Structure formats: C-alpha cells, structure tokens
C-alpha cells in the first residue's frame, strides 16, 4: 500500500513537471482571478461540442429532410417531419398512422414503462424494507441484489436469452413439472413479459440501494416513539416510514421513469432487435433504426423523434418535481 502511494506520488510529480510550467505561464499572463475559467475550459468545450451543439443540431435537423449529412445540403421541410410522425387516424391503432412503426414503438414503450416502473418500484421497495429490518448478512444480500446493476446490458441480454432458450434451464425446469417447452422469446406476450422481468432483474438493486439509504436515514427514535404511542405496524409503515421516504421515492420514480423511456440495450440483445416482429421495438430503437440502420439514413425524422422524446422526458421530470414539492408542502 505504501509503495502504491509512493508510485502515485511519483506519477503526480511527473505530470506536474510536464504541465506546471506552461500553466503557470498562463497564470502570470491572465492572473490568478481568471484561472477558474482555464480550469473549466476543457469541460465546457466538451459539453459545448457534444451536448449543447447536438441539441442545436437536433432541432435544426428536425426541420430538414433528405439523407445527406451536411446541413447545407439538406432541404428545409418545415414541420414535415413532425407532421409525418404525428399524422394518424387513430393514435390507438399504430397501423392507421403514416409512420406506424413510430406509434408501435410509442405504445410498446408506454406499456413497458408502466409495467416496469410499477414492478421495479414494488420489488425494490419490498427488498429495501426487508433489508432495513435487523437482518443477518444484510451486506451480503445488498451486494447480491446489486451485482446485476454492474453487468453490461449486452451480457445480460445474452445470459437471459440462453436461460430462456428452447433448450434452456427454464424449459428444463418446466418439463420437470410436466409443462411443455415454450420458445418464450418468439411469443409476443412472453417476450414482452420477460423484457420487463429482465429489466427489473437488471436494475432493482440500484433502486433498492437508494431506498435503503433513505430508510436508514430515518431516525430510530421515531420508531421508538411510535412504539410507545402504541402505533400498529400498518400505521407505522404508512404514517412514518413511507412519508419520510417520500423524497427518496420521488428520486427513484423520476430516475426509473426517465431510464425506462430510454429502454434499448438489453431489450435489443434479448429480443434480437425488437422481435418477434415489432413486439419489443421501443422508441430509442426506432430512432436508432431511422438514423443508422436503414438503407436510407433519415436523420431528420430521427432528430424530430429525438426532440419529441426529449420534450416528453423534460415534461415528465418537471411535473414530478412539481408534484413532489406540492406533496412536501
């Protein structure tokens, strides 16, 4: 450990020796007072180029057509992209829409978000409440539930794909129970069900951790006071635990919703690109396909869809923050 620290010191010294002279020269020229701008510069340049510029471009591209990359070669089409995305006889029937895949993706995403948010929240909350009890080996279980969070979505997609395979463990287990094997990922209903299961399996550990941190921050003497006040367990849960957990629940809900809307990686791998058919094609996949996977690269349409998704995310966040404030006061 001491040797590692010595090595780290040496590395720091080396970089110091390389960069100090030029940076100090700049300090002499611009003065100490302007140094923070220099320190911020790399960060702001990168944010500018890869976050703020893209936002501007996305808005610009959303109003142009064609498949060319250069904005100067792209014809201005006004609101055509948005009109195309939104043209629909009935929004409830994707087939009646001009861009039916977009609406299929929207409805798939909505269903996924609904079930995923509810299931993840419930599982994470129950797990956090149990882990918050004076339970043996809490650290082990917390770690265990957290482990999938660290895995790559591709790996998770593959692991589950194998688990759900025609010759996989789940079918072997079902056969032991006398149930005929099923090709889960080729069935619309089952595949949607398992996309949610995999998502819950993947992420619940993260939300459990946040909720557990919130639970552990509730002062123990509140529970002692409630016990002395002869509160029943249900009153303790609904009148003390959940209200005090409120801010954490709000954070979890917002994060969960924002991330659910962006479902892509693990579902894409698991379902071989959104199958069967378009049963698991979600909104990000739609954008990806329009911009990068098709024969025609429809950047304008993809940008318009991105802008719409960004707006929805923004509105969702703001509404929830507002509600959260209202509930608090």
């Amino acid at each position: 450990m001491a040797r590692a620290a010595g090595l780290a010191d040496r590395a720091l010294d080396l970089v110091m020796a390389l960069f100090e002279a030029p940076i100090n020269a700049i300090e002499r020229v611009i003065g100490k007072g302007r140094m923070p701008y220099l320190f911020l510069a790399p960060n702001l340049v990168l944010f500018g180029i890869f976050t703020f510029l893209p936002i501007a471009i996305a808005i610009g591209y959303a109003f142009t057509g064609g498949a060319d990359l250069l904005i100067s070669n792209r014809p201005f089409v006004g609101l055509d992209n948005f009109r195309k995305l939104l043209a629909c006889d009935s929004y409830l029937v994707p087939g009646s829409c001009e861009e039916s895949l977009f609406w299929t993706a929207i409805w798939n995403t909505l269903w996924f978000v609904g079930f995923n948010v509810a299931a993840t929240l419930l599982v994470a909350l129950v797990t956090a409440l149990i882990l918050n009890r004076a339970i043996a080996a809490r650290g082990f279980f917390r770690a265990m539930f957290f482990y999938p969070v660290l895995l790559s979505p591709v790996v998770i997609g593959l692991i589950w794909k194998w688990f759900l395979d025609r010759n996989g463990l789940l079918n072997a287990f079902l056969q032991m129970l006398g149930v005929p094997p099923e090709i889960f990922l080729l069935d619309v209903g089952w595949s949607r069900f398992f996309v949610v299961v995999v998502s819950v399996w993947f992420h619940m550990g993260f939300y459990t951790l946040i909720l557990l941190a919130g639970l552990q921050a509730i002062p123990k003497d509140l529970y002692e006071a409630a016990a002395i006040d002869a509160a029943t367990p249900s009153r303790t849960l609904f009148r003390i635990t959940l209200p005090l957990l409120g801010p954490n629940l709000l954070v979890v809900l917002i994060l969960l919703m924002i991330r659910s809307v962006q479902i892509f990686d693990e579902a894409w791998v698991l379902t071989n690109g959104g199958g069967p058919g378009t049963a698991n094609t979600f909104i990000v996949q739609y954008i990806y396909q329009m911009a990068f996977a098709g024969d025609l690269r429809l950047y304008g349409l993809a940008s318009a869809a991105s802008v719409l998704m960004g707006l929805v995310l923004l509105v969702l966040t703001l509404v929830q923050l507002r509600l959260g404030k209202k509930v608090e006061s």
Partner: protein
Amino acid sequence: MSGNVSAIGFFTRTRRAGRIDITDILSWLWLIGGTLAVLVPVLWAGMSSLKPEAEITRFPPTLLPRTAIQVEVQGFDKPLSLWNVTVDGETREMAMVRRIGLKAQMVDPANPGKPVSVDTRTISPVQRLTVATQNYTDPLTRFSFLTFLKNSVFVTFVATLLTLIVNALAAFALSKYRFRGDKAIFVLIISTLMIPLTVVMVPAYLVIVGVGLVDNLWGVIIPTVASPTGVFLLRQYMLTIPDELIEAARVDAASEFRIFWRIVLPLTAPALAVLAIFSVLWRWNDFLWPLIVLSSRENFTLQVGLNAFQGEFSVQWHYILAMTFLSLIPVTLVFLFLQRYITTGIAGTGMK
C-alpha cells in the same frame, strides 16, 4: 384483518432476539429467492460455457459439463466411444465398434479381440466431467476477441483517466473560486443531467462525423468525458476541503495549478476513486454509443463485438457464452473488491 396486519408488520417490525415469527420466515424466503433469481441465470450461463458444442444443446440439459469419452483402440482407424456394458453380471467399460438395430458390437479397449454383441438397452455411455476449454481458447485465437478486448481496455482506461482530470479541474474551479458566472455555469452543467445521450445521439453522431472521429476509438471516448455526475460528485466532495488549506498554500507561494495538483487532488482521492469505479463500469459496459460510432470490426469494443458474434454465430452458443463470461470477469472482480465503495458511493450520490 389480522392477516392484513401481520403482512404489513412484516415490513416494519424489527427482529427480536430468540423469537422467530412468520415475518422473519417471509423475509428470508424473499431474500433467498431473490439471491437465487440473481445467481441462477448467471451461473447457468457460466456452466454452459464450459460444455462442449455437442453437449450444450442437449435437452434436458445436464447441470455439469460432461462429455462422452472416446478411446483409441488398436486395429481401428477412428477413436471409438466408450460405454458401460454389463456382461455376465459384471459391469465393464467397452468401446463400441458399430451399432445395428438393438444390438451393438463392443470390444475391450485394452485387449481388442473379437467384438461381442450386446443389447443396446443395457449399455450407457461413459461420461466424464470435462471442461471445454476450447470454448475459451478458440475465440481468443481464432476470432477477433483479443482485438475487442484490447479496444475495450483502451477505451475504458483512457476515458476514465480523462474523465477524472477534466471533471476534477471543473469541480475545483466550481468549488474553490468565486468568479463571475460561477453559479450559472454550475447550473448549466448540472442541467445536462436531464439530457440523456439517447436524446442527442443522432446529432452527436453528426458531430463525430464532423470532427472526423467516425469508426475511431477516440470518437467513443471523448463525447462523454465531460460528465455532469462527475462534476457534481467531485464538487460536493471538494466543498468539504477547508478553504483555509487553499489559502495556506497560496501564502506558501503555490501556483493555482500546484494547489490543484498537490493539495486538492490528493485530498479528493476518495471521491475520485468512486468516480473512477463508475467510469470503468460505464465504459466497459457501454453499448449503444460504440455501436453507432464504430463500424469496422478491428475497432469493435467487447460489447459491440459480442453483439456481432451473436448475430453471426447464432447457433454457436458455446462460443457466445464463453465470451460473455470473459467479459463478465473484470466487472465481477471490480465488484468483489470494491463492493463497499460502490454501494456507499451510489447511496451517497444517487448516481449510476
């Protein structure tokens, strides 16, 4: 009524020594069930990755990787399969020469004389526990797996280093200086938390095209180096470093950069460690962005490569699972050794 109450009591009551009630049992069932749910798919994939190609799709599957044994027998060109045969009430291992209907011709592999004919219903194949190491060695030698690995290591290492330096510099400026626009810049940076990469991935790709980094590992690395979570985490930590230390260093004639490099950076080590762990995980697991930016095989990262493999070798699960497992190892090691750091880091910052 009472059932309702006890179901809720299950969440709130804390365990009392020497008394086990129904809520404890339910808790343990939930925890053990959850643990199994986490472990079984992963371990199942791990077990399967050790099975030879012929065994992996056997249904119903065996738990452990086993394989039929083949032996070289004098007088026969090809290796013969080994079977347990019961002859005259005595069980022996014999090699099968050929099989006709319900009869099989067997020889003693040690002493190959005239084959004996036995009923196939009385014989069973000899299986040994074997690890199909070629599942792992083949991808390493025959396919581009090592290239993918190298690319992933490069991206992860360089991106993490840059993430630490760039965000620590910004956090230093935002925590230890007062200057015109400091609050506005902080709000601007934090507000980008609300703009996920998926929303700007199309135009971000266009920017990458514009700066000529398409199909280049730097195009994967650079766009997410500036991280609002990173700035936030480091700034919050740096705020706890007393300003008097900075002033003491200034009185001690240290330049601003020296203050950053020799005083602030070493003292921020715990937060830097948390950010480094996260950065490693983000980069190692990153999929959609490299998928968009990288197009030629020699530039693929592990995740993109794995995805390509599963498209190309969709029936060769033995290779796919082996490579999946290889890519799992670094993350699992990080987890085993740094679990405490990670969980407290997340609980403290709410980030991932």
